Structure formats: C-alpha cells, structure tokens
C-alpha cells in the first residue's frame, strides 16, 4: 500500500489558487520528483504536507493515518481555530476533542515530523551560528525525553541520553561525509556542505519520508553527482524520497517517477522516459524561457 496519498489537494492564498485538486501517491522506497515551471506550486505542496500551511481542501494520508483533512463545513473550521487559539491550557485537550468529533487532529510541523516526514528547505535554513554537530543534534531532539528536572539534577538517564544523541548525530555526519567538520560553525561551511548538512539534519529525525526542496540548487557538476549518490544511499536505507528539483540531470538520473505541475495542476505523471516525451510537459516548459533540459 502507498506510504503517502494526496487526494484532490487545493491551497488558496487569498484570491489565487496555488494548488488545484492535486492527487498523487507515493509507494515505500520510491524516489518521486515533482518538477514544473517556477510558481507551479511545488514548494506549496511541500509546505501543506509538512503542516506549515493549512490546506484549503483535500486530504493527505500518510502511512495509513490522516495527515491533512479539510472540511467544507464552516462550523468545524471555526471550532478548529477556537481550539487551537484558546484550548491550549490543558495539553492534548484540543486533540482529544477533535478525535471525539472524528476530525483530523491539528498537526503542527513538529507533529508531522513525529509521524515520520522530514524536510529540507529551498533556501537553506540551518542554524547558522551553531556548530555542524549541534545542527544535526536538533534532529535528534524530538526522540529525547529528558526535561528540566533531569537537566537540573543531571540524572544518569539524562547523561546517557545526551551521550546517545551525540553519538547518533556523529553517525549521521559520517554517513553524509561531514564528520570531519563537526565543530565548524554552520555558516562557515561551503555551500554544498550546507546543503548536505541540511539533509543530514533532516535524516537525524529518522524519517520514513524525506522531502527535499531543490537540494541541487546552486551545486556544481561534481557536487550534483555526489548528491545523487547520497540520495540513492538514503533510499537504500529504506527512506522514501519526495523531491523538488530544477536540475533535470539529477531528476532524470535518480527519479523512479516524476510528477509535472503547472499552475497548481498535475499535467503529467510517469517515468523519466515518459515525461521526456510528454507533449504537455514540453509545451509547459517551452511556454516559458528557462528550459533546463
């Protein structure tokens, strides 16, 4: 069965409709690329899936559980907003109420991460003033349990956890090949390294699905190739990958399947070969200047 299922998803920003009834599904272990002209709504898809923007309509099911579930009925929207804004005093209370009403929970981005989706950003969003290691440790954070008390009393459990976190983080860095730079300040890294660090940080959350937003942007030939290699290795570790990319070499090189978006609608869906011959796609791409094939 599919790992991620997107059903007639739409997202409006004020007047304009960024995504329009988009549907696709993603099976485990697959590498799926979403391509399309600028402003086609690719990143918006990501932002909706990862809970940064609320969807206007449509549903997203991840790993058998509802991730996004919108309702036309206004009353439920209002209730949702009310609960989110006011009902927060007692932890988990809004979730409970919603579950009672059979509505999808309010998922904030960190909940989505809990569910097993990790992402990178189109414009790199590392913690620039922190070291490489600390950046990766951020990804480990949500699996830790130690709280204020543990920290104050330096309980053994807390010490062990800390040690584990660091060890894991270092493993990630070795996997991605940044272990030798782990004490450097992130923003002193070379651009390509920053891209890789961001991937490592995302991996640190142990995702089932890794969502990469233009990972190859700004990389040179060699780095691009290295990146493809890395992505494959990640996939081989059993992580499914959803990818937005402009660099057609990368896309065609590693994708199992490709979805083409234009004006928020899906105009094509198929293997790299199919896509390359698809008339709509070519039209869509020739429609604008920057043909990148």
């Amino acid at each position, binding site marked *: 069965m599919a790992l991620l299922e997107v059903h007639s998803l739409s997202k409006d*920003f004020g007047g304009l409709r960024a995504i329009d009834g988009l549907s696709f599904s993603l099976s485990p272990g697959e590498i799926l690329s979403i391509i399309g002209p600028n402003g086609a709504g690719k*990143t918006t898809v990501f*932002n909706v899936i990862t809970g*940064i*923007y609320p969807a206007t309509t449509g549903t997203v099911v991840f790993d058998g559980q509802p991730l996004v579930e919108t309702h036309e009925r206004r009353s439920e929207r209002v209730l949702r907003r009310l609960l989110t*804004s*006011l009902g927060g005093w007692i932890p988990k209370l809004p979730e409970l109420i919603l579950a009672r009403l059979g509505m999808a929970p309010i998922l904030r981005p960190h909940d989505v991460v809990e569910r097993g989706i990790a992402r990178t*950003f*189109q414009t790199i969003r590392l913690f620039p003033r922190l070291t490489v290691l600390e950046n990766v440790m951020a990804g480990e954070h949500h699996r830790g349990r130690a709280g204020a008390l543990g920290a104050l009393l330096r309980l053994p459990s807390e010490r062990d956890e800390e040690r584990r976190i660091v060890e894991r983080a270092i493993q990630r860095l070795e996997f991605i090949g940044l272990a030798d730079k782990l004490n450097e300040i992130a923003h002193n890294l070379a651009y390509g390294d920053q891209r890789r660090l961001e991937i490592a940080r995302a991996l640190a959350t142990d995702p089932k699905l890794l969502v990469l937003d233009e990972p190859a942007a700004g990389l040179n030939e060699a780095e691009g190739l290295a990146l493809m290699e890395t992505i494959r290795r990640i996939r081989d570790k059993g992580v499914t990958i959803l990818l937005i990319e402009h660099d057609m070499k990368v896309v065609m090189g590693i994708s199992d399947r490709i979805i083409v978006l234009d004006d928020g609608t899906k105009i094509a869906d198929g293997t790299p070969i199919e896509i390359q011959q698809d008339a709509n796609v070519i039209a869509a791409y020739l429609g604008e200047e920057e043909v990148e094939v």
Partner: protein
Amino acid sequence: METFLQQLINGLTIGGFYAVVALGYTMVYGVLKLINFAHGDMFMWGTLAGWGLLTTVFAGLLDLDLIAVLIVAIVVMAFIGLLGMTIERVAYRPLRSAGRLSPIISALGAAFALQAVARNVSEARWRTYPEGLLKEMPDLHLSGTVGLSGLQILMLGVCAAVMIGLYLFVQRTRIGTAMRAVSLDHNVSRLMGINVDRIISLVFFIGPALGGLAGVMIGTYYGSFNFTLGWVFGLKAFIAAILGGIGNIPGAVLGGFILGISETMVVAYGPDLGLVDASAWKDAIAYVLLIAILITRPTGILGETVAEKV
C-alpha cells in the same frame, strides 16, 4: 441617554488625543519595526515646550489667543520633530543591524533621559498653561445639558484634520509612497533608488512633530501637566496603536477612539454593573481588551497578517 451622549463626547475627546499620539508610534513602527518607547516622552516634551514658550517668550502674545497658540504649536512641532530626528540619529540608527533587543533598551534609555530633563526643568511640579486660553469659543449645545465646549470642537477638529492629512500624505504623495515602500523592505527600496535613511529621518520628524502638536493641544485643553504625562499617556497611546494594528494609520486612529470610548464607558457604567472603583480599574480593563484582541487577531484589528515565506 443624555449621560450616554455626554460620556460618548468625553470618550471621543480622550480618544482623539490617544489617536494623534498613536500616529507617532505607528509611523515609526511602520518604517523601522521599532517600538519607539521614547515617543511618549517626546510628546510630553511638546507639552513642556509649549508651556515654556507660552509663559515666557510668547507671554506677550497671549491676547492673540488662538493665533498665539497656533504659532506656539508650529514652533513646538518643529522643535520636537528635530528632537525626534536627533534621537533617531544618535540612539537608533547605529543599532539598525543590532538585532531586536538593543534598540528597545536604547529607546527606553532615551525615554529615561528625556523624562529626567523634563522633571528637573519643571522642578517636578505640576505646571499650568496661562489661564483663560482659548476660552472665548462658541460652544455647541446639543439636547439639554449635552454639548461640546468650543475647545473640544477645536481639538476634535484638529485631530481629524491631522489624521486625514497624514493619511492623504502617505497614500497620495511621492514621499508617502516611498515611505510605504521602505516600510515593506529597506533593501528593495534602496534598489529602487529611495534614500531610505532620509525617509526614516523624515518619519522621525513627522511622528514626533505630531506628538509635539498633541502635547500643546493637551496642555491647552487640560491646562496643566507634569513630567509623568509622557510615560502614562504615552503607554496608552501605544496600546491604541497596537489595538488598531501597529504600522497602519487608520488602525492607530481606530485604536485611539476604541480605547478612549471604552475607558469612558467603563467608568460611566462600571459601577452600575457592580464594578466598584471602576475608574481605578479602567486601565486594567484597557489592557485586558488589548490582550483579548491580540489573542484573536495577532496583529491588531486592521493589521494584515503576513505569512512567513518558506
């Protein structure tokens, strides 16, 4: 009913003053995203300067009444405007790239300094404007006891004029457009060939100048003041600005009137609703109102919500 009308008028007058002062906060915030804590005290300096002039230099012109006040008002506006520009140059400009905490401290520091000077100049006493100023004005009598004094009419008129004028200025003129551009994005505006620094200085002239005007108005209207005026009144005006959605001129006006009227109504009808010492509690109620509005509309009533670009 009559009481209600009268209270409404009271509320409008107070709200008007809040609004004019709030304009200063809101403009500065618009272009600099900085809470200019010193604004309240600049406005108090306006009252102080007005008092100083009217009791010394212009003491001779008092029989000119309105004219004298107008002259003084203009002089004070110019003075406070320049003061504002200086403060921006000295206390804010060096900190533009220094994160968000430092400017706040700097602003508070400026406020302290201004207040200390004012306290020592006024010898910590209540100072009174010359008596009988602007008394000879036609009152407007509505039904029965309800009415506006000539002074009130004048004040409300000036407030309205200032707000509309400013609004038109920002919306219609080239400079106004430049201001709006700067408030959106400094760098882009710079690329568009706008001299950002000059625009900011200009804003720091207009805002405080309006504060100064409000200062003189309050001085003449209430007849007396002391150095704590800026702190107290300023904070209220600031709340008004936030209520309406800071950075937004109609918002500031709206906020001002909402605050003024709601305060008045609390005092007027609080006791009937079983709220003893209503007038002592009314500030608290103003704050509660603020919080309630911000919880539901995180950027104020008219403030537009900007989603973060990812």
